[in-house]
Structure formats: structure tokens, C-alpha cells
């Protein structure tokens, strides 16, 4: 049995970052884009917690930071869904490419 090392966590986190980034860039459904952004935030959380373990029990900064990030991410998701609902009431769509009133 190989023990799980920090490198494993870092690899997992990098994979989540990649999946999240690809999701944001390629998907057109705004709900899925929101989910992809959450994936990136969680990739950072995994990194923070893994690095916190790496630096030993004296150094808890990373774990505390992760708790803050979870809280902030919830607030952000709430606001994002609220904005999306306001948009859906007026435009009846959640597709990013149909939201084109203002030219990019």
C-alpha cells in the first residue's frame, strides 16, 4: 500500500481546476458554469487543507482559510443564483449565448 501524500492531493486539485476551467469556457448553460466555478473554489480548498497538513499541526492557517472560503462560496452562489433568477424572469433563458443585449 502506498500512503496518500501531499502530491496526490495537489494532483487531484489540479485536475479539479482543469475540469472547472474547461466547464466555464465550454458550457453554455449558466447553472453548469456556476457549478464549474464551485469546482475551482473546491480545488483551492483541497490545496489549502493538504498544504496545511503538510506544514504540520502547528500551522492551521490553511484549514481556517478553507472554512472561510466555504462560507464565502456559499454567499457567492446565493447571489449568483439570485441574479440568474432575476434574469430568467425577464428573458426566460439560462443559456449564456442568448444573453446578448450588450455587445461583448
Amino acid at each position, binding site marked *: 500500500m502506498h500512503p496518500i501524500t501531499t502530491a496526490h492531493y495537489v494532483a487531484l486539485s489540479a485536475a479539479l481546476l482543469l475540469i472547472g476551467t474547461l466547464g466555464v469556457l465550454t458550457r453554455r448553460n449558466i447553472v453548469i458554469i456556476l457549478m464549474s466555478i464551485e469546482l475551482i473554489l473546491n480545488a*483551492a480548498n483541497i*490545496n489549502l487543507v493538504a498544504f496545511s497538513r503538510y506544514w504540520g499541526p502547528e500551522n492551521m492557517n490553511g484549514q481556517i*482559510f478553507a472554512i472561510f472560503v466555504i462560507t464565502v462560496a456559499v454567499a457567492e452562489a446565493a447571489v449568483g443564483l439570485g441574479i440568474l433568477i432575476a434574469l430568467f424572469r425577464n428573458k426566460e433563458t439560462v443559456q449564456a449565448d442568448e444573453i446578448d443585449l450588450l455587445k461583448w
Partner: protein
Amino acid sequence: MFANYLPTGAEYFRLLPEMILTAAGTLIMVLEPLTGYRRKRFLGHLALAGLLAALWAAVVAYSSPGPAFNRLIVVDGFATFFRVLVIVVGILTVLSCWDFLARHKAESGEFYSLILFSVVGQCVMVSANELITLFIGLEVSSIATYVLAGYLRDDKRANEAALKYFLLGSFATAFLLYGVAWIYGVTGTTNLVDIRQILESRDVIHPILAVSTAAALMFVGFAFKVSAAPFQIWAPDVYQGAPTPVAAFMSAGPKAAGFAILLRVYLTAFGPIDQSWVPFVWTCALATMVIGNFAALAQNNVKRLLAYSSIAHAGYIMVAVATGTAPGAAAAMFYLAAYAFMNVGAFVVVSHISGRGERKVNIDDLAGLSSRQPLTAALFSVFLLSLIGVPLTGGFFGKFYIFKAAIDSQLYWLTILGLLTSAVAAYYYLRLIVVMYMRPAVDGEEELPPLGGGLKTALWASALGTLALGIFPSAVLNFAGASGAMLVR
């Protein structure tokens, strides 16, 4: 054993502005359902009182500078400068929004609460001494601003602006966070001063590639916040779709706070590895100046034009960051102060002429403004001349100090191209002045309403600030110089 961790009275005192703003914002939210629609203006006065109290607190907090709460925040000259700046932007926004909100029948307490909470976030950002506080301040400020951008929730353009701002903003912040996690992983600390010491010490071997990558990832988040290329695409759409007072706020407050954390993180924490981040700040500065100024030439909508101009100004300030020196930081601080006054002033004028539903925001709608409302036209000209950088205005000294710092740091190409692009900028600003003064008003145009009291105060205050920084720049500049030097200690 916990007694060591309890904060002292002096530490609470250093956090006083944030506490006052949070209390005022919460109080307004509590009072909101208890106030009838006709009395909503009272909540605006309350917000103004809270902001003025916070301004006072920010100034007196500087009488005992130092770190607070286990070095989570630090109150120094730099933090005080930017706290005062973002609170003043908040005051100008609250003063200028009354007419706008009344015209759109959208007066309500949450507008003021959101402004206050956004200012709280910016105050925390600029006084952050730690990546955790920096991230929280950034998010508090951003989340409030996302909602403000979509404040007129029956307006499709405002919905779209808020959604674009939110999606791109949270995407960029997620990258910032990923970079922060890597910095923590490599150095084992989130304190900016400790990071600097670890990067400076020769006996610790740190992988320079990992630190540079993390610095680049964090730059994505900062560049988004200050609308610097290549992360500027959101700015024109969001400024156009958002309510104009909110656009004025966004273009000055969050941008100043974004540059403050950019300067603090890169000069304080990443100062020892400047050879690895100066090249991409250099490229970003050049691209931002070119894209902002040339795209502004083609605009017919004044709000979009001002959005591109605010991108261009972010480029000039990025030149100051690229110097990586204390005089560069001081020049950036001075420029941000001058920019806040002139840009908020310009947006306030646009908000005044835009009319109901914000339909009159094209350049042609300015025709004959000099005869319809001479005072508004004259003040608008002051702001535009300052944005060009004409002497006797704050914009002139801002550009002067930035390019002087750039030449002292041997950034000759950036200086030459910066001066050339600001000559291009003179064209689109002067075009607005020409339309105001030389083209007659269209017949049958409905009369502009007279300037309301709040609007007038905001306009005069912005104009006075712009001119004061242009005629007596030395006091602000000396303060900025002293506090900029503290960053690279």
C-alpha cells in the same frame, strides 16, 4: 491561556471605520421595512452619516498606526490613504444617487446598505496584512457590487450586466484563490510580511517556478478587479448596463481597492522576486493602454466611452506598478485619488443627463448642453480636461508622476507608448466637449431637470477635488510618498 489572543482596545480602535460602516449598513437594513416609500430618503441620509463617521474614524485611527488582530490587518499610511479614498467615493455615490433612484422609482434601503457593505469590503482589502483578510475583503466588496450592478431588476440590461460581472468576477477570484493556496503551500504562511521574509532568505530553498506561477494566478484576480487587459472585457458591458451611479462607484472604489491590494501584495510580499512578475505587469500595462484608448475612439455611448477610458487609466496606473519601486507606488496612489474624483464626476454628469430609463446616453444627446445647463457643461469639461491630463488638474500631475517614476526605472518604451496613447485619448474626450459647446441643442428636446441638491454637492466636491489635486498636489503627494516607501521597507 486565551488571554494572549484577546484583542486590545487599541486594536478595536484601528478597525473602527469598518465597525461603523457595518453597523450603519445593518441598521439601514433593519429600518428598511419600517420606513414608508416616501421616507426612504431618510435612509440615504443615514448612510451618509455612517460614511462621514467612518471617514472621521479612518482619519483618527491613523493616530495609533500598527497591526491588529494577530496581524490580520494593519493600519498604516497606505491603508489610511485608501480607506479615506474609498469612503469618499462612497459618499459621492450616495449623494449622486438620490435623483437617479427617485427618477426610476427605485428608492429603497438595500441600495444604501449594499454601498456601505461594498465600502466595508474595500476598507478591509486595503488594510489587509494577510492573504485571508485580503480574500474576504475582496469577496465582501465584490458580492455587494454584483448585486448593485443588477439593482434595477426589471431592466434586462441591468440583469445582463450583473450576470456578466458575476460570472467573470467569480471565475477570476477563483483563480486568485488558487494562487493564494499555492503561495501558502510553498511558504507555509499567509502573512504578507512573513512571505517577503521567506522569499528573501537565502537559506530556504523555495521553488521559484511555483511562486511565480502563483503570482501570475493571483494577478488574474487583481487584473480583473481593476479591469486591466486581457481581463477587461467585462467592463464596457457592465458599466453600460449597470445604473449610472453604480457605474461611477464601480469605476472608482473597487478599482482603487484592487490597485491597493495589487501594490501591497506585489511590492511587499513578492518584492524579492520582482524579476519574475515585472514582465507580465509590463505587458499588461501596454495592452491595457492600447486597447482602452483605441476602443474608446469608436464608441457612441458615453457610458461605454467612459468604461473604455477607465480601462485606459488602469493601464497608466499599471505602468506605475510595473516600476516596482516606492516612487511608482506613490505615483499610483496619487493617480488613483485624482482619477476617483474626475471619473466619479464624469459619471455623475452622465447620470444627470441620461433621463428616465437611461435612454439619453449617446454623444449626440450632449448637444447644446452648454446653453441648456451651463454649469453642468462647465463642470463636465473640468472632468474631461482632467481625464486628458491638462495642467492645473489632478490628471496632469497624476500622469506626470507616473511617467516620471517610469523613466527613473528605465521603462522608456512604456513611457513613450503611454504618452502616445494618451494623446489619442485627447481626441475622444475633446469630442465630447466640442459636441457640448459647438453643436446646437435639438429642437423639441425635453428640458433637463435642474440639478438636485445631492447631485450638485457631489459635482462640486468632485470638481474641487480634481482642481485641488492639480493646484496643490504636494500635500497628497508627500503623504503618498511616505506611505509608498513603507511598502518596500
